[in-house]
């Protein structure tokens, strides 16, 4: 029991480190994206289509993540 619990705690710590690292990076890129969208020339052609699709996916992912984070921190 103790050995397995230690492994669980170690895994939790490892995940928390990965989570915090990724979260920081993602936050920075979200800020950059907002700035790009506000001041840069919009994308065109196929890139614009792909962008719209990815933007939708991104919004859905963010929503799901925020819901899970709420459970995590509750």
């Amino acid at each position: 029991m103790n050995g397995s619990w230690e492994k669980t705690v170690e895994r939790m710590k490892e995940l928390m480190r990965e989570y915090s690292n990724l979260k920081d990076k993602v936050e920075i890129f979200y800020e950059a994206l907002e700035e790009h969208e506000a001041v840069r020339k919009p994308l065109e052609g196929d890139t614009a289509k792909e962008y719209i699709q990815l933007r939708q996916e991104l919004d859905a992912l963010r929503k799901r993540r925020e819901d899970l984070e709420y459970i995590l921190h509750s």
Partner: protein
Amino acid sequence: MSISEEIGLYGEIYRVATDIADKVMERTKKKELNIILRKKDLDFEKIHKKAEEVREKKRILEQLMQEFRKEVERVRDVVLWCSEYPEMVKVGLSDGTVIVAYKYYVDKVQNALEQIRKVDVEEVMRRTVEKIKILEEVVEILKREYEILIWMDERFRERPKKWWDEKKEEQEEEKIRFYPGLGWGRRL
């Protein structure tokens, strides 16, 4: 044992040790003299050696006494310091050492320990295991978000920022405004 009792005990030990040391030193002096007197015309080398041994013993004893005095001073300093700071308390640690610490922090630690003792360990373990699953999903989502955001950032970086200024200028031109001497209108 209270601090004053403790320092009293140290004083007592110190007094006894000093008496013993004085007596030993006195005796060794006498002994040294007797040896010299008795064996004066017999073996000077042996007498010299014996005297050296006695001196060495005295030196060690004096050194010990010096260390002991230092220790007494140190303890006295701590005790005086503690009496000046009533907010300090002596705390015995699990490894047997005793430290002097602020009562405020000692109370905090004790309260925290009490809180920890109240925690339902089984429940915490169960919730941690549950959270790991959620956290794994969150990390996977973040990885995909990061991937998409990098892609977007790269595409947008190629697009000019100046475009925004040009657009604002165009919007300005499209606005109907009042031109003195000409009346209301739009720039052509």
